[in-house]
């Protein structure tokens, strides 16, 4: 290797690094960050973008350079040099990617922990109110508790989905929209089978500031606010307060996704899944169903309305008044959203579904169409 070429190589390396770092910071590919969790996830993405850009430029650079530099010259039919491989080089390009993915795993793990993915056995506080379960579910003592508590209290933990569902339907509004499906038990040794994003580490051990029950059904989200009687097609949230979204589905799989929050969780019939997060930016963002749920999947959209504390309280007060006039009226008085039936009407009409079938869809009545088998 002569000196000028190694200088060129070095300059190319520096340029590649600079470009990668710039791309990692300025790709402009992500929407607004509207939750406290979002910047953490974006930091991870930016890091991955930096590494990826470098790697991509390296590979494509080598390919394009080779295509020009090493092209067969006319008339040269001889073979190239007999290079069969080199163990140190193989070790180098086994080792470096291994270190990179190890680093990314650790970083992802940290982010996952920081957004509350790992709160190991922390149980939903709404299930806590059942006195009998208090002990086993005391956050903090939880790990120890599952590892060496006697079998019968583990059995207790297995009914987490049922507990949360029971608790949720104690709220009459939730009971009116949630279908009462058999709930899955948790695996006895491996903990919860219903995934969730729990509290961030500083909130671990504390109940969330408030709880919203989200129920997915073909083709709408229904949000109920326990103890207030509020039923809403749109999700109103106060900015800066941690919320626990308790998610389930009535018929098929759905998924709750707010791109601006970078959070997504499937709604699974027979399971209670959770998202615990803190909205950080006032605004309206789309709530999107991200799991195929039928022909109208693309239409299953609503909004999350992140408000200041004052605006939110005003909305709650207004809703409470309305709900005093009856559940159906509550939905109707909110001009910005429609009841499920109304929401579905234009679609179901096209589908040739009649009003009485829609009534059946209403989860309080038995035998909705999902029990086709």
């Amino acid at each position: 290797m002569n000196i000028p070429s190694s200088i060129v190589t070095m300059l190319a390396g520096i340029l590649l690094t600079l470009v990668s770092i710039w791309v990692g910071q300025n790709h402009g590919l992500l929407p607004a960050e509207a939750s406290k969790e979002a910047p953490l996830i974006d930091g991870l993405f930016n890091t991955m973008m930096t590494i990826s850009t470098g790697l991509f430029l390296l590979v494509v650079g080598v390919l394009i350079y080779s295509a020009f530099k090493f092209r067969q010259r006319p008339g040269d039919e001889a073979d190239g040099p007999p290079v069969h491989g080199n163990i140190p080089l193989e070790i180098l390009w086994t080792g470096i990617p291994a270190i990179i993915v190890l680093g990314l795993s650790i970083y992802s793990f940290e982010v996952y922990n920081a957004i509350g993915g790992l709160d190991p056995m922390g149980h939903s506080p709404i299930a806590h109110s059942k006195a009998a379960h208090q002990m086993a579910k005391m956050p903090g003592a939880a790990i120890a508790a599952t590892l060496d508590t006697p079998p019968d209290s583990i059995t207790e933990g297995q009914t987490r989905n049922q507990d949360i569902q029971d608790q949720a339907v104690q709220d009459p509004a939730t009971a009116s929209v949630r279908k009462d499906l058999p709930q899955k038990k948790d695996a006895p040794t491996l903990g919860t089978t219903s995934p969730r994003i729990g509290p961030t580490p500083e909130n671990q051990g504390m109940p969330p500031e408030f709880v919203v029950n989200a129920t997915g059904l073909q083709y709408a989200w229904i949000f109920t606010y326990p103890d207030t009687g509020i039923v809403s097609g749109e999700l109103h949230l106060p900015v800066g307060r941690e919320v626990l979204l308790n998610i389930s589905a009535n018929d098929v799989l759905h998924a709750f996704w707010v791109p601006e929050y970078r959070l997504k969780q499937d709604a699974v019939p027979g399971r209670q899944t959770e998202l615990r997060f803190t909205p950080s930016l006032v605004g309206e963002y789309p709530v999107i169903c991200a799991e195929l749920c039928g022909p109208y999947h693309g239409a299953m959209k609503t909004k999350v309305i992140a408000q200041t504390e004052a605006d939110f309280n005003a909305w709650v007060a207004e809703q409470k008044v309305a709900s005093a006039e009856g559940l159906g009226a509550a939905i109707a008085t909110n001009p910005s959203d429609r009841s499920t039936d109304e929401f579905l009407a234009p679609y179901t009409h096209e589908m040739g579904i009649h009003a009485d079938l829609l009534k059946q869809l209403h989860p309080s009545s038995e035998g909705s169409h999902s029990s086709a088998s």
Partner: protein
Amino acid sequence: MTQAQLQETANIAAHGPDVGGGDWRKYFSFSTDHKVIGIQYLVTTFIFYLIGGVLATAVRTELATPEVDFVSRELYNSLFTVHATVMIFLWIVPAGTGGFGNYLVPLLIGARDMAFPKLNALAFWIIPPAGIMLMLSFFVGAPGSGWTSYPPLSLVNGKAGEAIWILSVLLLGTSSILAAVNFLVTIWKMRVPGMGWNQMPLFVWAMLATSALALIATPVLAGALILLSFDLIIGTSFFNPTGGGDPIVYQHLFWFYSHPAVYIMILPVFGMISEILPVHARKPIFGYKAIAYSSLAISFLGLIVWAHHMFTSGTPPWLRMFFMITTMVIAVPTGIKVFSWLATIWGGKLRLNSAMLFAMGFISMFVIGGISGVMVAAVPFDIHVHDTYFVVAHLHYVLFGGSVFGLYAGFYQWIPKMTGRMLNEPLGKIHFVMTLIGFNMAFLPMHKLGLEGMNRRIAEYDPKFATLNLVCSIGAYILAISTFPFIINVCWSLFRGPKAGNNPWGGLTLEWMTSSPPPVENFEADPVLATGPYDYGMGDRSTQVDVPFSEPSDPDLSAGPSSSLRAKADPAVAAHPDDREGESANRE
């Protein structure tokens, strides 16, 4: 003499007679010749590729505008469901394994046919009825629950279509299992004497890894589908939550097959790339053993990563971390391959013909899919992009930028062997350029769409995504048109193409040591490996080369012919005295 001439001279006795194409009717018969079956697979699957492409074009036409205006929502769901099912089960899997695998494996290992010729024919003949059945489902309401067919939706969405889908995929899976058994036995038992494990061409290694994977994983899919059909038809509730069943269990069973399936789709293509690059770079493959063993590593790791498709559904927190790490680790053996390919090209004398262009295009596009694959392995990020267009972009960079580019490279490489006639180079280059442009237009913008909030499997979307979607749709049309130069090229070549001769590329592997097309039973006598399969440039063995850290005298440090990573010639017949170290272990 070049290495190719050495190998050819040593194999004069094995050279089969020049018999030409023979009777075209055999391609419509229950033939047991692996070459006929290979071509039957390739033509049939390519027809299904065109059908899948038409469906994709319909999908993109619907998505050219935000409104639902081209097809109904129900039909839209059927279009992308059947599109994906066709592309996976009727194109990539059977074309890579059944098509190229059948045609090449016996030739590459110097065998006269596959181990079980009738089973082989049977495996092929399962495919057309299964495919036709799937197409006919459009008359009774095609399946519309996505190619994943998750319950409970798949149980309520239209029974006839779903039942047909299950039956069709079950048949295709059976075909794949039969083929896998056949490959394993063939590779194990029928290598020509003198071909030890570490002398097998890399495509054979890849087929070994693929077949093992297919054999382990496919039965699990069959089990899942049979249970699903019980739920669907007789009302059991294995997966139906209304009766206490668990839809998440289906997802586990499904992905236990369907993640390995992506390696079933890419490993054979990796193998073909490892064959094509050295021939046209006129250089040995860099790190033969590293590439061979990394296929096995991928095959093993591929079995323990499936739940990365379920990060937002039913995966408990600690399992999410387990599957994140195993998934990321797959990047390591994959990286070994990519870097070894780059090192193979580096310093060679590249013949930039269509096969080589598609192979190099494969590396550059596959790398994008590989990188976005590591990204989606990171749980916190996947929670954001799961089930969005980011994933659609990722999977097409792997399946199209990867598998389809690689299959095209394979067509340009081996059609001269299959038909005895060359393809037209200018048309091939037009095909390559159009494919590259159309592909990137169609799929690169999808990354941004997904990150910004466009979910997948929707017929209607937020108008703010309209511009990028239009770009994607135009790209898809360019892609659709790009197929024509290829089809015209093949038809032209069949009748007008210049004669290829036995060894148009100067290759060293055994398929080039017989006539084009090879006769029934391939070889007159057992061929021999006078030179290793990748011994390009070894005529003058003193050539030393400038490789970092290299030390010619130590096999572990040497970059040249004494490297311990090299695939050696058969010691019994090696052209070069240095390679004749004792007798072949395999030759009695």
